[in-house]
């Protein structure tokens, strides 16, 4: 079977609520006894860490911490450095580790945060030559074959994730692309300006700027139907999601009535000329509205285009609301640090949001501290993270990016720009762990194929013994921290038969298939 045969038309699963966890301490306590009673029924539940035992979830406990990386840290600070590299890259490489150790924790983090100062000209010049459509505007893109546009968008995104030296920036591009998720099929070429002017422009900038750019983005307004919403003929789709998914969070304090009011405030926010933002006063509702207690008085229609100010005020209200600070902080902490983000870290990041006016870099500094990283359990790579991490560490001669960026992304369940719902691909181990067999098959492909993504196996055979090969794998794939058990298992596999190229490739496939490589 090749991944092209795979059928992935099924629809998607919802995202875990970002804020539910933090809420309802009361209801947690209220039902604790029942929950424990229920828990007792279920035989074989893994023992829980004591801290969690008093309010445990039904049946399956929170995932245990994966603590398998075998630190070879030359000094106590060095282990935090490799952890930092794992979190801020799309896959650790020896080059990254060398660079980070040379600079030290803080300077490496600052280098990644101040990404515009990183010389990435080789990648950018390849991208601009190979994927010129990424720089086109909507008028140029509209007349093109949309399959070609999608091809360049997808391969360009994949290429930058894999090869850019601005790895933290690319990780945040991925994060915000999910946060402001848009399904390609519905808006097609409009996704290119959205990716460029909303996501990539502000990925490490200020959140309020990104939110405002998104609210003016033809792709977003069309994806969530606001382009169709007119006075007395409204459509609530965008107004609901800007509150629920983009800013306040579902428990952020707004009501159904507020959604209806926000919908009215945003009437007339549409597009014209096949992809240009346009406020249409003829579609705007000039009546009085109240959103979360804030009055928007009625205006005479003679106000005309100046009535866009109402919507702008709504955006300002949203980005300065404490619920937004908390929601964005929670989600960023989950992304960078832990599925179960520690309240203290979230609070610190939220306070930083408020203090700096939503400065994403400043928030990341609060999240990515050595202490936070040392306390954070490893996370499970999502499919595209896995694919890109193999490209970074195995360095295949990639003559056909499409095989990985389209076929295998689809095979593993994460095709670029193809998540239907506005919540973006889940960042949950529950959702992704079940398709592990497909990952082993991908590992086999990338390590053993002889065609368009060929790995130069000689890189791993400079010391051509089982032990020497394991050392090379540890250095290239695990930042020198391959778990001891894995090393024993790989050594055994390499020692069980003659060290042919096929055996070494099998061993590489197994290293990529291993549980340790699934985590970061």
């Amino acid at each position: 079977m090749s991944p092209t045969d795979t059928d992935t038309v099924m629809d998607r699963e919802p995202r875990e609520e970002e804020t539910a966890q933090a809420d309802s301490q009361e209801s947690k306590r209220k039902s604790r006894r029942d929950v424990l009673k229920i828990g007792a029924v279920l035989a074989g539940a893994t023992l829980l860490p004591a801290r969690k035992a008093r309010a445990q979830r039904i049946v399956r406990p929170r995932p245990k911490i994966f603590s398998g990386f075998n630190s070879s840290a030359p000094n106590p600070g060095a282990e935090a450095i490799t952890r930092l590299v794992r979190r801020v890259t799309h896959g650790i490489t020896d080059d990254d580790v060398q660079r980070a150790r040379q600079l030290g924790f803080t300077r490496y983090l600052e280098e990644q945060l101040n990404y515009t100062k990183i010389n990435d000209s080789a990648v950018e010049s390849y991208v601009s030559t190979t994927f010129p459509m990424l720089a086109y505007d909507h008028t140029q893109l509209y007349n093109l074959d949309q399959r070609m546009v999608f091809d360049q968008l997808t391969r360009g995104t994949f290429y930058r994730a894999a090869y850019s030296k601005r790895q933290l920036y690319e990780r945040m591009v991925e994060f915000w692309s999910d946060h402001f998720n848009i399904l390609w099929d519905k808006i097609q070429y409009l996704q290119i300006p959205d990716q460029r002017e909303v996501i990539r422009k502000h990925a490490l900038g200020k959140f309020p700027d990104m939110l405002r750019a998104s609210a003016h983005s033809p792709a977003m307004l069309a994806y969530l139907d606001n382009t169709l919403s007119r006075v007395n003929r409204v459509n609530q789709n965008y107004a609901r999601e800007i509150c629920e998914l983009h800013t306040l969070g579902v428990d952020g304090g707004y009501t159904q009535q507020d959604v209806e009011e926000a919908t009215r405030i945003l009437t007339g926010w549409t597009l014209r000329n096949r992809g240009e933002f346009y406020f249409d006063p003829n579609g705007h509702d000039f009546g009085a509205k109240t959103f979360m207690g804030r009055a928007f008085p009625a205006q005479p229609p003679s106000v005309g285009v100046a009535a866009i100010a109402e919507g702008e005020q709504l955006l300002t209200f949203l980005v300065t609301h404490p619920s937004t600070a908390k929601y964005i902080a929670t989600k960023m902490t989950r992304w960078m640090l832990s599925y179960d983000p520690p309240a203290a870290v979230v609070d610190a990041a939220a306070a930083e949001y408020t203090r700096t006016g939503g400065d994403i870099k400043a928030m990341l500094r609060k999240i990515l501290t050595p202490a936070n990283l040392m306390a954070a359990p490893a996370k499970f790579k999502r499919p595209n993270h896995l694919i890109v991490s193999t490209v970074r560490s195995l360095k295949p001669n990639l003559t056909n990016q499409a095989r990985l960026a389209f076929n295998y992304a689809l095979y593993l369940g994460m095709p670029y720009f193809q998540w239907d719902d506005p919540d973006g691909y889940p960042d949950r181990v529950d959702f992704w762990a079940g398709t592990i067999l497909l990952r082993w098959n991908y590992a086999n492909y990338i390590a053993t194929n002889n065609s368009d993504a060929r790995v130069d196996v000689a890189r791993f055979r400079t010391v051509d013994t089982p032990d020497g090969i394991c050392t090379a794998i540890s250095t290239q794939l695990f930042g020198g921290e391959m778990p001891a058990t894995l090393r024993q298992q790989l050594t055994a596999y390499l020692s069980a038969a003659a060290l042919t190229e096929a055996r070494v490739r099998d061993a590489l496939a197994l290293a990529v298939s291993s549980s340790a490589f699934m985590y970061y």
Partner: protein
Amino acid sequence: MTDKLQHDCDACNEYNELSRRQFVGDGFLLGGGIVATALFPEWLPKVVLAQSQVSSRDILVSVFLRGGSDGLSMVFPFNDPLYYSGRATIAIPRPDSSNTAQRGIALDNTWAVSRPLSPVLPAFQAGELLILHATGSVDPSRSHFDAQKYIEVGKPRDPNVATGWLARHLATSTPMRSTAPLRALGLSDGLARILVGAPKTLPISDPANFGLQGSAATRSERTNWIRNNYTGVPEPVQASALDALNTITLLQNLNIAAYRPANGAVYPNNGFGRAMRSCAALIKGDIGVEALHVDIGGWDTHANQDPLAGSMFNTMNSLFGSLGAFWADVINGGYSGGVTVVVISEFGRNVRENGTRGTDHGRGNVMFCMGKGIAGGRVMVNTWPGLAIENLENRADLRVTLDHRDVLAEIVQKRLGNTQTNVVFPDYTPTIRGVTK
């Protein structure tokens, strides 16, 4: 640690048993007499597990309509003028309309269904399809993601309840077949929340192609290597890995691609149709799977809904065409065991259409149950709330008068043989509504 060892042991035993049976050969059916292979269609497993189904419990097929389906475009009170006044462009014409191509089909003097439901009418007429209306969650959330989660976990707004209700049903019931390596699967790219926490359960989007690729010469060596490597890693990763390895042989012995539905049933050739066809093959393959979950999207019809000829019309054709085929093929197709199908969505949509020929997020909705053990052939409502504006929730939405958990809990009790509904639906005492026979 004990449970881990236990798990391993189980896995080994199952693996050995499978191998042993395989060794016994293709021409023999285990558990008694000698049966010639020729009696069996070629897609059936080469290896048949011990003790063919003796359980009286049904296999459950759970279908989730993602996006909030507009139930009033499926099943509607055709004598209510408010239905028509609220839906100027999207109402389904009355069954006596002169628009014969698009008019609804009357079920009785109150209810009619839109034409895409035609394929399930034979099941309805046979008394094996139950339509429930004004159902849904007690929680008023109009967020897709909250509402889906609450329905899938079986209790709204409780952060302690993170596993799926179907998962807890499986966890609290004895396996229908003790040796089955796989008790449930979702036909999807990731595990739906309804199954999160379930034992021996995997998302498998393509069960016809489930195997470890790469060199055949080293396959068994690599398989063992991976088994060792994943033993002891944190859940849910360990269980997923071991379940996957234990399932390979099972699924490879089923030739799903060659599966021929009974009764000439034809599944629509699209994602959902193929998934339902796979469900049929997995059920008839008699491999011990006791629950299957399938999602179908495309229901979030804010604009240009067009249930008469366009977007929603096509989505409904896919859904009901597949359900009709499944009924003919499996439920009415001579399959010896019981099968119950449940179809649900996170919420319904506004009673009145919006300004863009669509409908925004609403509340009460229609639900479907199908099976020989279902008391079907009727539309069940627990007090029809009506469409008058003063009777609508938030003056916009059909009220929920029937908690979906009543329907599901009765099925769990009566068709799936699990009395622990207090675990499956925590802190809820269901009312038995007579959904089952």
